[in-house]
């Protein structure tokens, strides 16, 4: 009966069968919409958490950066990212004497309390990743910027003697809507932004840098620094060098290596990852239950119709395929809707809330979306399998007698 090639005919047949599969879920719009909402929530969770944790992961990877210091030295007992000056400035030069040390930079980390950002977030104690909720400001000599990971500057660096020049990380620049040449209010003084930088590290990129001496004066930390950044020589072992530093200043200095730090952040991330998987699984489970329920109801209502399809010669396989297909149509629709809502939602939250947006750069890695797609597809298969099986096994006479 088919005039074209068998293959061509089958293709066309599959097309009309598919159009039926796509149409059927819309017969009961409310019920299908509810099922789609359920699964969409799961997809939103997966995509949104994926974008955020993916963004944080990208950032940790770039903390291990060639050219930047491998070791951070702080005073024993102070918090890992020292804030305020607790070490003497001369220490940076002294550490150069330790074997394996190639270069050092004394830096002062402080938190500004008077920018627009700070005023909106200083009241919230949790305030994100920046130190203590304000904008983190680092004092460093311009010629040492590469040690903190700032290799290229869009614009120019500040000059060490200036008292009104800063450079700014791209993420905070974006959230404050500032560019090179603009001014910013820090510690009650006006600063000109001479350049912006992007290191890939979410903490660094959410901060501002100025000359060490300027920050020391502004914060009353004359001749004081909070950390020393240490770059080791090319053939030196980072662990050995950091051990030598601690040995040279027992009970005074502690060291952290960039690798340690990355590890610590990775541990945190793997916890977030596990948590987001658990949340996703729960969402998927709820979604799957919704799909099973929707499809069972749909099969139940269409009992007679399924009897008719069997009477006109439809194979059990085709009926199974139809119901399963309908279930997958539901979940793939939820994938599309959920993904759009997640992407728009994450972007919206990050732009509307500069304190968060200044720190997190969402990831758009394709595997986040692939994962959500696979999950949606599997929920469709799992949720549809039992109802489809039941439909395919209905006895035609029983189905036709069904009122």
């Amino acid at each position, binding site marked *: 009966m088919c005039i074209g090639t068998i293959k061509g005919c089958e293709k066309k047949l599959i097309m009309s069968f598919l159009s039926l599969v796509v149409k059927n879920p819309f017969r009961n719009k409310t019920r299908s919409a509810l099922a789609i909402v359920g699964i969409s929530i799961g997809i939103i969770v997966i995509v949104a958490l994926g974008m955020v944790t993916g963004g944080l992961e990208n950032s940790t990877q770039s903390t291990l950066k060639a050219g930047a210091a491998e070791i951070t030295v702080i005073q024993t007992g102070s918090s890992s990212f020292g804030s305020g000056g607790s070490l003497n400035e001369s220490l940076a030069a002294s550490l150069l004497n330790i074997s394996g040390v190639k270069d050092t930079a004394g830096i002062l980390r402080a938190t500004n309390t008077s920018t627009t950002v700070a005023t909106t977030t200083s009241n919230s104690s949790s305030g994100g990743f920046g130190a203590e909720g304000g904008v983190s400001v680092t004092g460093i000599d311009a010629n040492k910027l590469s040690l903190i990971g700032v290799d290229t500057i869009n614009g120019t660096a500040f000059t060490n003697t200036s008292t009104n020049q800063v450079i700014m990380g791209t993420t905070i620049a974006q959230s404050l809507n500032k560019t090179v040449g603009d001014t910013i209010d820090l510690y009650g003084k006006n600063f000109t932004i001479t350049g912006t930088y992007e290191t890939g590290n979410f903490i660094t990129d959410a901060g501002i840098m100025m000359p060490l001496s300027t920050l020391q004066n502004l914060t009353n930390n004359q001749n004081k620094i909070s950390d020393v950044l240490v770059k080791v020589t090319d053939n030196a072992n980072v662990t050995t060098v950091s051990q030598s530093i601690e040995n040279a200043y027992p009970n005074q200095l502690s060291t952290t290596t960039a690798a340690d730090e990355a590890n610590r952040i990775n541990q945190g991330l793997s916890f977030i990852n596990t948590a987001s998987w658990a949340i996703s699984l729960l969402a998927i489970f709820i979604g799957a239950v919704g799909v099973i329920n929707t499809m069972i109801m749909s099969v139940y209502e269409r009992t007679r119709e399924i009897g008719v399809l069997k*009477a*006109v010669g439809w194979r059990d396989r085709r009926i199974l395929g139809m119901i399963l297909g309908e279930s997958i149509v539901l979940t793939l629709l939820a994938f599309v809707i959920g993904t759009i809502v997640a992407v728009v939602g994450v972007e919206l939250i990050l732009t509307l809330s500069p304190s968060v947006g200044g720190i997190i750069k969402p990831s758009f890695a394709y595997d986040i979306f692939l994962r959500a797609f696979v999950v949606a597809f599997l929920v469709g298969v799992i949720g549809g399998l039992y109802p489809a099986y039941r439909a395919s096994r209905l006895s035609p006479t029983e189905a036709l007698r069904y009122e």
Partner: protein
Amino acid sequence: MNNNENIIEIKGLKKSYDNGKIKALNGMDLEVKRGEFISIMGPSGSGKSSLLNMIGALDRADEGSIKVAGIDLMKTKKLYEFRSKEIGFVFQMHNLIPNLSVLENVQIPMFETKTSSKDMKKRALELLKAVNLEDKINQKPTRLSGGERQRVAIARALVNHPSIILADEPTGSLDSKTGEVILNLLKDLHSKENVTLVMVTHEPYVGKMAERIVTVLDGKCQNIIQSSQAG
């Protein structure tokens, strides 16, 4: 084609439900010739629908023998293929799929055949024309009258060129005037498409249109009356 050949041969067919408590068919014998139009009558619960279900291979009998269109239905494993090729059902209720258009509804049985979508449409249109619905092909069944729906169901039953149409009270839910139109259509198409027509009905006047009336009582064929109209 040999017109004296039996297309349906049933001997001593038994079917019971509820663990043998209900004997729907209790030693049924029936022979139907190819191209014949027979009417099956009998009281409610006598086993008429059960008989039709057996002929249409919707269910398997417990005992006896049943051969339809040369296929032994007690043995064959390909029931769906048999139904798809040989049988067209018309039920009391039209049983159309509400979200599909009239045209799509008629095409539904062709999904299991290797028909191209072009040929599917051609055949469906041909039949919809034959049942006088060519102007309603894109409507949804919910917007059709009962008689129109039943006409779509008849087109659907014929679409795969079956050798037998099994109609279970096809006019049962229609008023008598509409019922008559449907009956005439069925009778007409049965001869035009050269298909055997087996029709269950409660109404004597409907039965009289057939070439032969078979009365079923307690799961058996009681008597076979040659219809007065039969030529």
